[in-house]
């Protein structure tokens, strides 16, 4: 039996929910601050009290529009809210305001990088809804409810079943998360639940096109659990099929401790939501000027930046990833600005970013607002080095001072006396002294022990605290040894 299903294909679609970065909730003015005392951010609207009326938050609508544009979606010029009816105490109204057949964005795609290849994953829809309250199951017979999260603007991004492995699922989520963080729609905090991912997974015999039985996976709170959970589920389904078992359509929960998935007990008729147009909310209507204004406000997106760095600047994919794959687009903005001001070899700027900038940035906890060094200053420093006014070793020292003080490199060099000792006149006494101290070394170099020459260069550098022009030191030493 095992061989019959030896070759199977995994097919995944992903549903990603992101709480939108707004100050106030979707339909009322309650704060969205995370971590506030239970039920301290509630009002008649988000508690579903009779007579209250929702009014949409423009910023939340614009976040979804911007996301839809960033994901290359078509915008529905007219979009409406629907009621999704269900009885569960996480929503006090007994319905969730969501979108149904006319979501804000449809038919987009996201390009995802994996092992040096770019894979296009189609996006089915991007829609706007409200988040639910939080239930705490502390006691056997009762649950405790906190409605602070009830009514927080929530966006859902649904992909087509274009994902074929746990690696691709993780890469897709990473790429999507980065876009959402860069455009400011989401803080991307999976561990706080502000970004949540629910893959649906099915397997089928290789070469067939019909989708198998779908299993939805919940409780994936990190990239690692997305990867592990999907990989586990693929293996479980493959083995079940190999044993000739029938798979059931169900929702399973990833158990982070035991590293398995287990079925969740779900309500009967759970999917009979009886959607109907939300009568309390009038339609959303978008026009070209509004959409174009939002499009113009989008930053350059990670994938476009990747393409530019690799194609135009000749960076390796790995080098590009170190600059781009960060929650702070400001890091690669900095690189771009420094390169513009420098005008030289992009690799040289990238090397400085990777070795010195990112080392200090990471050590400082990736705190962007605390960064003092300016891109123009990095460019100016590189120019000083190119002109031979500071040595490579001194450049490192200058960079560290620029990092901690934000001063321009010229000023640092001036204040600390770090200029290269570039005249023969200044260097001569130091070189003569070094030669006088090491007569045996000089002698062996004259006898052909070329390897010892660098020792003398090192001694001169040490005596000048790295400020000597290395080319000049070389020439002067040679002249004197040949003497």
């Amino acid at each position, binding site marked *: 039996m095992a061989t019959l299903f030896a070759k199977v294909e995994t097919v995944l679609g992903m549903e990603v929910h992101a709480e939108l970065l707004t100050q106030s909730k979707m339909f009322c003015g309650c704060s969205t601050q995370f971590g506030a005392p239970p039920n301290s951010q*509630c009002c008649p609207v988000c508690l579903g009290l009779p007579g209250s009326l929702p009014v949409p938050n423009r910023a939340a609508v614009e976040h979804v529009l911007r996301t839809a544009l960033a994901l290359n979606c078509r915008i529905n010029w007219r979009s409406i809210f629907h009621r999704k009816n269900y009885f569960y105490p996480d929503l006090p109204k007994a319905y969730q305001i969501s979108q149904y057949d006319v979501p804000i964005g449809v038919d987009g795609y996201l390009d995802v990088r994996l092992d040096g290849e770019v894979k296009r994953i189609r996006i089915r829809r991007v829609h706007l809804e409200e988040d639910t309250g939080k239930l705490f199951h502390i006691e056997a017979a009762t649950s405790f409810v906190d409605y602070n999260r009830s009514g927080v603007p929530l966006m859902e991004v649904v992909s087509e079943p274009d994902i074929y492995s746990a690696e691709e699922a993780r890469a897709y989520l990473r790429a999507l998360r980065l876009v959402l963080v860069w455009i400011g729609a989401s803080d991307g905090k999976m561990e706080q639940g502000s970004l949540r991912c629910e893959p649906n997974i099915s397997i089928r015999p290789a070469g067939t096109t019909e989708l198998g039985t779908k299993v939805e996976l919940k409780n994936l709170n990190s990239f690692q659990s997305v990867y592990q959970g999907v990989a586990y589920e693929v293996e479980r389904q493959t083995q079940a099929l190999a044993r000739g078992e029938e798979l059931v359509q169900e929702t399973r929960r990833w158990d982070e401790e035991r590293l398995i998935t287990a079925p969740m007990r779900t309500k009967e008729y759970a999917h009979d939501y009886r959607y109907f147009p939300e009568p309390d909310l009038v339609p959303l209507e978008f026009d070209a000027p509004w959409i174009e204004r939002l499009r113009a406000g989008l930053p350059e997106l990670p994938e476009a930046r990747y393409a530019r760095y690799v194609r135009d600047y000749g960076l390796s994919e790995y080098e590009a990833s170190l600059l781009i794959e960060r929650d702070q687009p400001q890091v690669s903005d900095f690189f771009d600005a420094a390169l513009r001001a420098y005008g030289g070899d992009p690799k040289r700027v990238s090397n400085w970013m990777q070795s010195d900038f990112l080392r200090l940035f990471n050590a400082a906890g990736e705190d962007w607002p605390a960064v003092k060094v300016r891109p123009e200053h990095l460019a100016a420093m590189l120019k000083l080095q190119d002109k031979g006014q500071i040595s490579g070793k001194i450049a490192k020292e200058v960079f560290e001072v620029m990092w901690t003080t934000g001063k321009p490199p010229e000023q640092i060099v001036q204040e600390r006396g770090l200029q290269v000792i570039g005249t023969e006149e200044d260097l001569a006494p130091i070189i003569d002294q070094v030669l006088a101290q090491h007569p045996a070394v000089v002698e062996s170099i004259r006898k052909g022990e070329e390897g010892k020459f660098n020792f003398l260069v090192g001694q001169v550098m040490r005596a000048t605290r790295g400020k000597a022009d290395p080319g000049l030191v070389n020439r002067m030493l040679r002249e004197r040894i040949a003497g």
Partner: protein
Amino acid sequence: MPRLSIEEVEHVAWLARLRLSEAEKQRLTGDLNTILAHFERLQQLDTTGVEGTSHAVPMSNRYRDDEPRPSLPREEFLREAPDARDAFFVVPRIVET
């Protein structure tokens, strides 16, 4: 010509968490079928080229600015809840995970 069976009425009542007596089920099945029959009549109207209507008022794009406003004091609404403890609403436990 009944469109809706009594079982369907029972299902809809269950979805809405309504407990109906046998007499009520009978009466509602009749009422609902009358309503459906009426809509069936309306559907005979030729609506070719007429766009669907989701809302009765000719209005769109009503928004608020993203500005937080004070919420209600917790005591005020927890007091109205069927059950509450400390800072929480308390509800019967429904679904396990």
